[in-house]
């Protein structure tokens, strides 16, 4: 199980990398942590002429807070993100999703950008980004494009990234201090890709009024999706989790394949949304109490 022969490039700077990418186009693949690409290379499922290793471009490994968003460089490793105080404070949903991503050893190397670029429908980081309403910053030699995460993911392994572009950064809207977040997931084993996952963010204007609400679902459709929950805004949170979970289950069009039937995915959607909404609500209540 050895990869095909390829040319290996290790640009030190972003512009070098973009230059290479412009030159090689779709004959090149971008290698960051290699947690997904590595296995696919070894299995010879991915057979590039060139591999562009961006893991040493320091500009891609930053975390910063800019106005209303937290910007994470595409090369930031999952374990760095997991131990980042900024992320814990400003993007709690991501912080909650990260422990579900792979294992200690793979998080040490796997990157946020790599996971987003690969666009596995079950992956946690893309789900968190979609749920947050985050943005993918794409850069090519010709310029920059910023695409909302909800548009970025097109299908399983398919995104709007063009071959000459690379993901440079991800923008995560900062969480409101009184928001409650939750992430729930069902996987066959610990660290496996989710069969289904749900992410929820909620804010209460008053104890009985939902002001902000996001429900994201991963692993169920061929890309992570945010459910349209506008009809629940302004309502009282009382019975919301149960109703919302029914609603979410009815609004997804689940994949149906050997790894899980559509019926099972729908059933999990219901369970997970209910769990996520309930725990996000109770955190939101706590936060409100704390801030008052």
């Amino acid at each position, binding site marked *: *199980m*050895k990869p*095909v*022969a390829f040319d290996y490039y290790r640009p030190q700077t972003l512009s070098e990398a973009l230059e290479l990418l412009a030159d090689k186009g*779709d004959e090149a*693949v971008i290698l960051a942590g290699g947690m997904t*690409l590595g*296995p*696919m290379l070894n*299995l*010879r*499922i*991915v*057979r*590039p002429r060139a591999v562009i290793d961006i893991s040493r471009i320091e500009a891609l490994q930053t975390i910063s807070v800019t106005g209303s968003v937290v910007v994470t460089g595409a090369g930031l490793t999952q374990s760095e993100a997991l131990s980042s105080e900024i992320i814990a404070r400003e993007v709690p949903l991501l912080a909650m999703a990260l422990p579900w991503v792979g294992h200690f050893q793979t998080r040490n190397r796997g990157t946020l950008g790599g996971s987003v*670029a*690969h*666009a*596995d*429908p*079950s992956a946690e980081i893309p789900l968190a980004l979609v749920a947050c309403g985050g943005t993918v910053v794409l850069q090519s030699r010709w310029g920059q494009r910023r695409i909302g995460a909800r*548009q970025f993911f*097109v*299908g*399983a*392994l*398919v*995104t709007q990234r063009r071959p000459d572009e690379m993901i440079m950064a991800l923008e995560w809207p900062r969480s409101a201090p009184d928001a409650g977040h939750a992430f729930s997931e*069902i996987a*066959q*084993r*610990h*660290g*496996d*890709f989710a*069969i289904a996952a749900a992410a929820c963010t909620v804010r209460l204007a008053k104890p009985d009024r939902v002001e902000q609400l996001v429900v994201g679902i991963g692993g169920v459709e*061929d890309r992570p999706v945010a459910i349209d929950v506008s009809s629940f805004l302004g309502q009282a949170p009382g019975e919301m989790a149960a109703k919302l979970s029914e609603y979410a289950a009815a609004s997804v*069009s*689940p*994949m*149906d*394949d*050997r*790894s*899980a*039937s*559509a*019926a*099972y995915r729908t*059933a*999990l959607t*219901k*369970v997970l949304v209910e769990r996520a909404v309930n725990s996000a609500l109770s955190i939101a209540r706590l936060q409100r109490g704390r801030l008052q």
Partner: protein
Amino acid sequence: MPDGIETISKRWIGAAVGRKEDEALLTGQARFIDDLYPIPGLCFAAILRSPHAHVRIRRIDVERAHQLPGVRQVITGKDVLELIGPLPSVVKAPLPYYPIAIDKARYVGEPIAVVVADTRYNAEDACELIDTEYEVLPPVTDLRSATERDAPVIHEAVGSNVISRRSFSYGNPEGAFAAADRVFEFSYSLPRYASTPIETFGVIAQFERAPDRYTVWSNFQGPFVVQPLMANALRVPGHRLRLITPPSSGGSFGIKQAVLSYIVLLAAVSRKAGVPIKWIEDRAEHLTAASASSDRLGTVAAAFTKDGELTGLRFRNTANMGAYVRPPEPASLYRMHAASNGCYRVKNISIDNELVVTNSTPVGLNRGYGGPQFYFALERIMEIAARGLDIDPAELRRRNFVPTGAFPYKAPAGAVFDAGDYEAALSELLRIAGYEELKERRAAARRAGRAFGIGLAAGVEPSGSNMAYVSLEQTPQERRRADRKSGANASAVVAVDPSGQVTVRLCSCPNGQGHATVAAQIVADTLGLHPDDIHVVTEMDTLTSPWSIASGNYSNRFAAIVVEAVAKCAEQVAQKIRLLAAAALDATADEIELHEGYARVRGQSNRGLPFRKAASRAHWDPAGLPDAIGPGLHECAIISPPVLDPPDDEDRIASAVTFGFVIDLAAVEIDRNTGAIRIDKYASVHDVGTQLNPKIVEGQVHGGFAHGLGAALFEELAYDDQGNFLTGTFADYLCPTAVEVPQIEIGHVETPSPANALGAKGMGDGSSMLTPAAITNAVADALGRDDISLPLNLQRVWAFANGHDATTKSRPAISSIRPAGRAVGEMLTGSGKITLFAPVQEVWRRLLDPSELAASIPGCSSLTQDEIDRYSARVTIGIGAIRGTYHAQIELRDKNEGSSLRLLGKAIGPLGFGSGSGLVTLQPETGDRTRLEYSYEAEVGGKLAAVGQRMLGSVMRYLIGQFFRSLERRMRPAARLDWRSWWLRFRRHGSGGEA
């Protein structure tokens, strides 16, 4: 007392001695097969394997591969045919098994050609340059359909996929069933799985002209009964196939027995290529094509009196051998045969066995070998009967146990159970599990609407196999014509060198079980030394080790038989030392004791000499030795346990030397909403006779349990109904990790075995045989249904818990519990609709226009018309980073002018192959538009199927959607394309899968 000799006061056997093996393993000094470069000039091999389940090989062209720099040789089955014959087995049907495909390939992963190159990297590159042409034949993938009349035949010369049938009857089963108050029957299927070791197979093969000999280094584990078979296949006498095992081996659990066919193959390839070669199997090869447990279909019936006395058992077994019978198969079906009564005293048993071949990897040894399958039948029916009779399952078992005073107990089919106290073990189990409390908690949980269940499983654990048991496959008449087989030789060497240091040599091929430590404990006790003073060599070398056909590591034979050889051999050395010391000390040998590193006159601590000194005399002063002893100190002992006769004419056989006992209890709670199983409690009580090293015993129990748990919950080597292999990586074949394996309670009952001097019974399979049954019993109890099949993964349990149709068909994994309405169980299916901005006639015309077709097929770089409505195309498909160029054939059929047509496609490329068909219908819509609806079914084989199951459906849907989307785009009148709007429209209308 002189310096340097530690005070030794305890008896080492039975102590939790730390392992001799550990330090080297912990510091990376241990050497495994791939760490060895035993000879210079090694080349590296890679194997091209069949991507198809069943093909006739039309042509293999190795020319391009040969041209690649670094490639030494490319060798096909036809090339080695002059050097090898088939590997023989006891099944007499004509289905020759070669280690490489000759004219047909019969399972995905069967070797087609071997490339020898200067690096593995180059060898793999070259594999991709071998041009093959196959005639794809219909496959047989399912045990049920394999035996149907019109099933494709895998081995033409046999004429059927049923390669043998045998029936057995012990006592009077008909009478028992006729007289029974109650009869319970249960049909089941069990999937195939494998206790995959973390180290894969490895072979280093060298052929020398002078001396004319094959030398092979391999992490083979035995049984060495197959060494003569390998030599036979290589057409050389035994001594010309020298087999050497490395110092360390990374687990096996039976699986590494199957490396035997690669030993033959690579030996022959080395000879052909004229260079020594190393081949290390990779994980994908291992999962696809190494070996597996035998999947089974079975029915078991049990006759009971109304008081719960088990009076009769009837087993019907259909066992999958895979595509060939690889020796020592069909042993998996016969290992438990002689103990078909389990741990019960039932006398009347009938057994019908049927061996079947399918287009799948040949099966072989796997932890518990035959036990998990057997106990799934017996222990499930016990639980079902308990419920039917309204007797507590623990109590029902207790009433039927072989009674404590009845040992040695002769079982109806011939096994002799050496020692046991099953009732005591049951009581211990119920105590450590807190059975009464568990039952209360179950009642409480049920009152609260929760699904809580308890399951038991009990059984004997045969150890130290009689080499003759597999000949039960033959009738008594056939056996009489064949050469007699029996027994189970074990051997060991204990030598003391001129400096007085003790070395033990074993032929037991350990793969992590601590044989060196236990052998040192035994020898240390016998010679009055410290285990640290005993050096143990576990590498085997068939030219220098005192091996025999039963040598190797399988069937728990180490503690059952090998230890006896070690003890005997050590005693021979001890006796010699006593004689030497007696001469030196002016005493008689009887007066000498070996203790604390000294040979001393008993009771006189000042009359002694150091062990080393006594021993060295045998080397340094042969002229001065007493008459009774010869020079040197190199003792070998070979033993065979007395009970292991050949099968008698009634098909009874003492199949093993010792019969340990294992009884397990599982309590589970199931989340009906998700299918998640929480193991609330797992307890296991073992009787392994005398525990030689409690730490090692404990380790084996934990490990065996983890294997059983994996088999129960996660593990399945899955095929689809076209014989495509679906679980080719560790992300598809799921082994339990530390999070999934719970803490368990372990208890022991010790009834020493009379079969050897130490009282030990073999052990190690243990819970791997019973855990699948115990957990299934608990899940069945929790859910109140018995039609439960393995593995009990989330989706499956969820389906069982929610009353979905759950047939016991185990393969394919998921299709049996798909929602109703799915006609094509195994295919990737989908459908969609799209509105085209053109009238129907225009759409129709474009659909039939090759240039339009070429422009709409994603990634199509060329399209040529072969004949009317038939095209060939080159298509580059890229999904994310996964891209490949495929040769595709497209055909239009069933044309219904202006309203519908069928598109058939086939594609083959480096990542695999696929085929599909789609129905396209057109309907006029207002405004000169056309509504196009499509539905398709497709299937994918080869590498993508083996590693990409989780994603294939979505990717297929995307690609097919892309075709219609670009068709739509090309028909749009608008000059400027609004990419997003058509995409959004597609998402709204095009729904893949079924609604």
